[in-house]
């Protein structure tokens, strides 16, 4: 393989199709009420990686940090064409803010040493757009954010087009490099044959749980099942904090300086309609009013 591409993805609650009980009384997201989906812009990042794989000789590895349930997005990435998937999971990672998250992801990236790291611009749950840039900083690699497409990739450098206000710019960067990707491509659908194969892909944790639920008594069974799946490439790697040599003080709640001070539940309601005269003076007055109440400026 000429290039190794690492795509970081996230399973998020579907905040785009919300129902009545999407928010809890305390103003936090009710994750139980919302279906868990593949973060949309992470799908764009995966699509960009797969396009690069189609154009150049590349291996695409997809990784996510999350609870065991997040394995579902990894399988989905395999259905769409990813070569390999890994789950970073550990109770010690829980409660991470963007700083702790980007640190944990940097530990994975250091092990894989990819030529290219791709992230979606932002996740639809937090909408911070911070993890990608922070990750690049921690890895000391250049970053190109808001990427729409890769113009060229050749030994040692990448040329990418990024969206800017009112247009775009084309940047060149040495490899390794990190890109954050915007919603500028159409992610390919899951492929039937890959679904039929990779629906069996599991993490060792899932496999173990399945055996425990089925009440298997022979210890040998589990090991045999795991090696048989591994031989078919159907084991999704599972990494905990120790496996990626993460400093316990820099991950999870311990590594997260962000504290939520207060959550205010804002209920939007329609106000009175106001008529603005269609004259220069009327518009001036409106703009002045908007600046005064900080809607503008």
């Amino acid at each position, binding site marked *: 393989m000429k290039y190794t591409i690492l795509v970081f993805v996230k399973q998020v609650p579907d905040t785009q199709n919300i129902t009545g009980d999407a928010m809890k009384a305390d103003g936090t997201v009710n994750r139980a009420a919302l279906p868990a989906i593949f973060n949309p812009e992470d799908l764009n990042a995966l699509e960009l990686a797969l396009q690069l794989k189609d154009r150049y000789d590349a291996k695409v590895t997809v990784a996510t940090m999350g609870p065991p349930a997040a394995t579902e997005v990894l399988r989905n990435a395999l259905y769409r064409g990813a070569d390999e998937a890994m789950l970073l999971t550990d109770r010690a990672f829980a409660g991470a803010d963007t700083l702790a998250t980007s640190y944990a992801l940097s530990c994975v990236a250091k092990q894989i040493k990819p030529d290219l790291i791709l992230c979606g611009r932002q996740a639809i749950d937090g909408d911070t757009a911070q993890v990608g840039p922070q990750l690049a900083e921690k890895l000391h690699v250049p970053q190109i954010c808001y990427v729409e497409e890769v113009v060229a990739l050749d030994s040692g450098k990448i040329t990418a087009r990024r969206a800017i206000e009112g247009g775009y710019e084309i940047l060149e960067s040495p490899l390794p490099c990190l890109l954050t990707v915007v919603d500028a491509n159409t992610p*390919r*659908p899951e*492929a*039937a*044959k890959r*679904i*039929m194969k990779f*629906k069996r892909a599991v993490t060792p944790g899932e496999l173990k749980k399945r055996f425990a639920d089925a009440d298997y008594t022979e210890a040998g069974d589990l090991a045999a099942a795991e090696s048989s799946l591994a031989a*078919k490439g159907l084991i999704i790697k599972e990494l905990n904090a120790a496996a990626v040599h993460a400093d316990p003080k820099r991950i999870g709640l311990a590594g997260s300086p962000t504290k939520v001070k207060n959550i205010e539940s804002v209920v939007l309601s329609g106000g009175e309609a106001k008529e603005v005269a269609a004259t220069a003076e009327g518009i001036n007055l409106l703009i002045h009013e908007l600046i005064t109440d900080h809607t503008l400026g």
Partner: protein
Amino acid sequence: MANFYTENRDLVFTLKNLDLAEAVGMKENNYSCAADFDTAPADYADACDNYDRVLKVVGEICAERIAPRSRTIDAEGPHFENNHVTYHPLTVQNLKDLAQADVMGVVLPHRYGGLNFPCSVYIAITEMVSRADASLQNLVGLQDIAETICDFGNEEQRQAYLPRFCTGEIDGSMDLTEPDSGSDLQSVRLRAWQDKDGNWFLNGMKRFITNGCAKCHLVLARSEDGTSDGRGLSMFIADACPQLVVRRIENKLGIHGVATCELQYNDVPAQLCGQRRRGLTRYVMSLMNGARVAISAQALGIAEAAYTEARKYAAEREQFKKSIDQFPALYDMLCSMKTRIMAARALLYETTRAVDLRNAYNAAAEGENVADETRAKQKYYNKVAGVLTPMCKAQATETANSVAYDAIQIHGGTGYMKDFNVERFYRDARITNIYEGTTQLQVVAAIGGVQQRDNDPRIAELLKCPVPCELTEARKMVEVMYAKQLEAVNFINEKHDSEYRDLMARSLVENETYVFVSLLMLRDANLDADRIAPTLRYILDARPEFEKRFMRIMSDDRTCIESHKSVIDY
């Protein structure tokens, strides 16, 4: 995300209750393929899980990607210049999406890169694609060409073509019709000749060829000099080449997204597919029967699309201070549309199930030392699929036309405008009861099976199904209809008047459909209480239609035969 599979309750119900265990077990070689192919299922439940997952993916592609592109494709269509067809960029994108989803070789065996799915699942995909964009189905459905090569070609031909069909690298066309040979394919004239080394070449014209710009053509040609009937025709595979010229593309009423071509063959190099002289009698008949089931699904997809728009519009449109779906004249139409769609779907998947069993037993009966029981079942399912296929095509395509007609009616003046989708569905539906055999020809294909009572064993089984108590009376009505149908068939059989039989054939076949479908609906109503109301409604609507036809058949009235000229030419 919108999804044409998960959100279509009737389709999900139908597939869930369609017992394909026998056919799938045979097709998967008793699940022994799992060792060689990582896509092969381990058992029937695993296979059903695969179908469900793939249908969900296709359902989403259809609803979220293909349907929103369909208006533009209809308005702009393919481009033709210098004998070259270029498909609309959105059509190309649709095909790319479906190829990436791996559904371009749905029924082809694992070893050629196909999914090895049963016909029933392929038809569900067909239905959804057609609902999203009927014209796209004409391209996607040409994987039937690959299936024909798989069934009748030699191993070398299979290796050469099938894997490329599965990836979407090549597409196909089925070159049958000629300017003077439409329904009457026996008169095909395109000539196949051999040079002294035995190489075949094709010379002549073909017309109305769907996707005639394809890379791989299956061509019906006259290989036997001096013959003039079907037994002088063979089937050939030809690749697109400079000698194969697209002369023009047609300007059609509907299905604008696909190019319908006139082709000129100037000594086009070709390979014989299968045996000489069996082109029409065996291979094309098989190909056409497969295509007829697919067109039934195309029609049903269009009907579903038209109904969905009409239902939505009727709920939103207010007149006289209430939504129009509250007026009896309107909700009556909607009920009728809905039950006719459910009826068409019930018969379609009953047909595909028979087709799957037929295909499985045809495969099982190849080779030596075939058990008598296998042969008997092969014979039985060939008969059943043989009569259900034309019944199904006639019913589904006529339903699509009437549902699309009603959908415009519900929209009123708005529906006549190009701003809404229903006028497109009406135009697209109109070809379905014409191509792959007109409804009149489907009647010809079905009447023999109806007269010989090929459906009776299945009807006997269906009569054993329990019915919910709310439908006891309806069930009695159907029993009466069945008795009358047997009486009518007997009347025609004993009359030995072939012209009268031909005159009444459509009524007889349609009444057979009413009886058969009513029994299917009753069976299903027993599995889901919510289906009781639609089933009752269907049967109550079917009864007067049945009686009208029954009266006509039994009238013994030959005046139409004797005086039709005086009527026509007044």
